[in-house]
């Protein structure tokens, strides 16, 4: 009887696996679980600058003032910021690009990333699209993108004609740590925590196995909009592909070397627009004021009815604030 049971179990398992494994997919390759990047799919719009290939596209008249959107992350992409393209109808040349190693842009070795490198990328993007020396250049950064925009102005205060910062997560290491503590509280017994961590035994991925690592980080993104999140994020917002290696690289840089994007901000005399979402309990007016205090001239605006992902979920409330700011500097 026991033998029969054993044989039955073995046959069942055999059938299960041979049927189940009929069409096995390769987890190591792009195109199965994550989309291909620009170097793997030539149909994706891209530019070659500063020794890399970036996923990029533009909207509007190339002779209008440039508005470059800087997405969050590090490692995310500009897909959830595409509402910004509407500013092309208001007389702005809107430029989107996925930062180095992010979104659909080309991946690089983990050890190759640095803050200076992504600043050089931004310089190269500006030079690539600029049609005249007098063309004004505005930066619109969201989250990490706002940190990057600040870092750029801190290094090159004369190159940028206006700066919009939507909830930068911290302009230096101290502020970043504070924001992280406020926005990433974990209850070890919760479903959210299990959703974030339990997957570590299913998918690992080695360093620079980008397709696996990017997928794994992508599916953990549900953590950010879980019920009760303090950043006021109501649900998923679209993305193409998370650049996990660049994210991990910048986390390492932050932890090992620290960073401070505020050391030279007193040289930037143009008014900076700060935006914060009414529903983001981790940011708020107080945090915005502390960050804005590093700039000589700033304006802080609350975006009603939204949280951290204000550009995707409440663009109708963001656009008037941004447009008013830009038109005053045009």
């Amino acid at each position, binding site marked *: 009887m026991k033998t029969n049971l*054993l044989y039955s*179990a*073995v046959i069942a*398992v*055999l059938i299960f*696996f*041979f049927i*189940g*494994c*009929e*069409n*096995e*997919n*390769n*987890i*190591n390759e792009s*195109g*199965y*679980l*994550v*989309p291909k990047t620009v170097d793997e799919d030539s149909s994706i719009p891209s530019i070659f600058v500063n020794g890399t290939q970036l996923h990029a596209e533009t909207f509007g008249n190339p002779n209008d003032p440039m508005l470059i959107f800087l997405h969050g992350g590090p490692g995310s992409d500009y897909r959830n910021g595409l509402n910004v393209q509407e500013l092309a109808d208001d007389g702005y040349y809107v430029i989107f690009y996925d930062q180095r190693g992010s979104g659909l842009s080309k991946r690089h070795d983990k050890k190759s990333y640095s803050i200076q490198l992504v600043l050089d990328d931004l310089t190269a993007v500006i030079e690539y699209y600029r049609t005249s020396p007098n063309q004004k250049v505005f930066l619109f950064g969201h989250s990490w993108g706002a940190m990057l925009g600040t870092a750029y102005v801190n290094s090159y205060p004369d190159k940028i004609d206006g700066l919009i910062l939507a909830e930068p997560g911290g302009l230096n290491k101290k502020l970043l740590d504070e924001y992280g503590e406020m926005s990433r509280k974990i209850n*070890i*017994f*919760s*479903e*959210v*925590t*299990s*959703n*974030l*961590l*339990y*997957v*570590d*035994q*299913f*998918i*690992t*991925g*080695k*360093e620079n196995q980008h397709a*696996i690592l990017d997928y794994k980080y*992508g*599916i*953990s*993104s*549900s953590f950010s909009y879980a019920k009760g999140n303090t950043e006021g994020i109501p649900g*998923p917002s*679209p*993305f*193409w*592909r998370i650049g996990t290696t660049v994210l991990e690289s910048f986390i390492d840089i932050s932890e090992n070397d620290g960073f401070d994007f505020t050391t030279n901000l007193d040289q930037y005399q143009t008014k900076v627009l700060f935006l914060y979402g009414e529903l983001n309990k981790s940011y708020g007016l107080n945090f915005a004021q502390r960050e804005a205090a590093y700039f000589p001239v700033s304006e802080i605006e609350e975006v009603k009815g939204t949280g951290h992902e204000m550009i995707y979920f409440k663009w109708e409330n963001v656009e008037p604030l941004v447009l008013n700011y830009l038109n005053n500097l045009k």
Partner: protein
Amino acid sequence: MKAILVIITFLFSLLYSNILQSQTINWGNLKSEERHILNVNAGWEYSFVYGLSYGYHLKTKMPIILESSISFASGEVIFDDFKTKIGGQIHIYRIENFRFNAAIHGIYRRYGNPIVTLQNFGADASITIGYYKPKWFVAGEFGFDKAIVTHFKHTQIYEEVYPEVKNGWYEPSTGGNFNFGIQGGYSFKKSDLTLRAGKIITQDFKTTPMIPFYVQLGYNYKLD
């Protein structure tokens, strides 16, 4: 190929009777007439988990325990994240109170979140070397847990992110983690109180899970 490998692993585990979650046994206290070992445990293993297991002590010259276990990750949805194992452990060699033990298990586990449901068949193997007395024991453990073949089924949320995503079985192996640590326990009457703790690193020895540690508190009750 993967299917064959899994089947071999599964059969091997059936015939020869767990690493990260084999029953923590005091081999110095296990009596030959004790046949059934019931175990409850809780602790951190990738997330907070609760587990039950059953072990059957075979009547063999070399002590073998066949075992099966199930554990659930904590959270509001109980049955979306769990792991089952079937396999066994064997006491291989003894020099006085020092004992050398090995274990192997076939694994079926499931993971679900708002974006994807994963089902995985894997295997683990471990060795334990320790000092065992009737009342207590302490041992070092080293193991490897391989996620051999995994099925991916995505929800609409991810299909909107990437409409061309391919559901189905994926190869080659989707993951693998090493663990190393210590275990120990106190035995009284027919019971053992056990504790295990250690570190987890991924198979490339360069990266780690987000929380790279495990700890498990267990209780065994033995029946004749």
